[in-house]
């Protein structure tokens, strides 16, 4: 068969169109569940990303575990209560629990601490049922039902800071955390972590 120019041109057009349709079908751009991966996680410049909190929590917990003062606490496990954290950030959707929970999980797993989930936080307990039963048991055994037996408290503050130089934007989040011995009121561990993000726009990967 001898191909003439018009037939070759039509054939090429059909091939090209088929290729475009095939690529379009394969690259649907649909949503997919992804694991935390530094190559594909989105880095935003206008708010705290979940990975910022996870990274900060990991570093703070690591610092606390490594602290000689925390390691030398005689009572194991010590009872830990959580103070409300101060979130001085622009991000109104930010929940300090996303930062605090991993830290507490690490402390519990280290066998050095047990969190008292019945302690009151803004007059609300994490576990109200457990608090009711605990108070009832203490009352029935002749103890003061409102007596708090915590040994240490965890408190902290999150601060944000925004800077700009031309098209380049920079946002910094400073995570401060303190562990206080309740009986003395003295801090036995204190540290802070800064997460800084910089760029002209949000991007994938960090």
């Amino acid at each position: 068969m001898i191909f003439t120019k018009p037939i070759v041109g039509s054939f090429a057009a059909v091939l090209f169109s088929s290729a475009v349709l095939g690529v379009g079908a394969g690259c649907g751009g649909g949503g997919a569940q992804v694991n935390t991966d530094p190559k594909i996680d989105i880095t935003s410049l206008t708010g705290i990303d979940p990975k910022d909190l996870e990274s900060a929590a990991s570093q703070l917990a690591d610092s606390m575990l490594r602290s000689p003062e925390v390691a030398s606490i005689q009572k194991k496990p010590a009872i830990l209560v959580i103070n409300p954290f101060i979130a001085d950030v622009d991000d109104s959707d930010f929940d300090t629990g996303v930062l605090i929970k991993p830290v507490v999980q690490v402390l519990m797993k280290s066998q050095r601490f047990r969190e008292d989930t019945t302690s009151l936080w803004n007059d609300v307990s994490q576990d109200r049922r457990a608090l009711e039963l605990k108070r009832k048991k203490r009352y029935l055994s002749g103890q003061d039902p409102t007596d708090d037996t915590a040994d240490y408290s965890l408190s902290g503050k999150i601060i944000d800071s925004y800077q700009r130089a031309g098209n380049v934007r920079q946002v910094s989040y400073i995570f401060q955390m303190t562990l206080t011995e309740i009986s003395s009121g003295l801090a036995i561990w204190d540290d802070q972590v800064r997460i800084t993000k910089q760029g002209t726009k949000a991007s994938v990967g960090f």
Partner: protein
Amino acid sequence: MRSASIGLLVTMWMAGAGIGCRSMNTVERENPIGVPDPVADKRIETDSGLRDIARVVSVRQATTPDGLLLIQVQVMNKRFSAERFNYMFEWFDQNGMAVRTPLSEWRAQQIGGKEVIALIATAPDATAKDFRLKLIDAK
């Protein structure tokens, strides 16, 4: 004329290299006082560029007073320019089983030109006896 052009290009390249790259000078004790406990390591390097940015210099271990394993990995940036990478420590118990912990999270790290830095991690509990350090180039 041609040699002058080449000379000009070389000069411009050197000037650019000088402006864009600032490496680090360091001073430390000639005979360090600390007595390190080195760890023999096995390395699997699939990214040659990353190997230049974060070349593992040494791996050391210690323990906290109550028995948690501490690992310190010193890495060096062999380039003259500041670079970024991400790293994560994973932990394993004495049976080689992974220990799940929030401590195993990716952390971003910046390293200066020709700088040596220490990546330090604490084991999550006393059952964690082994570790794996993962390094990945930043975007």
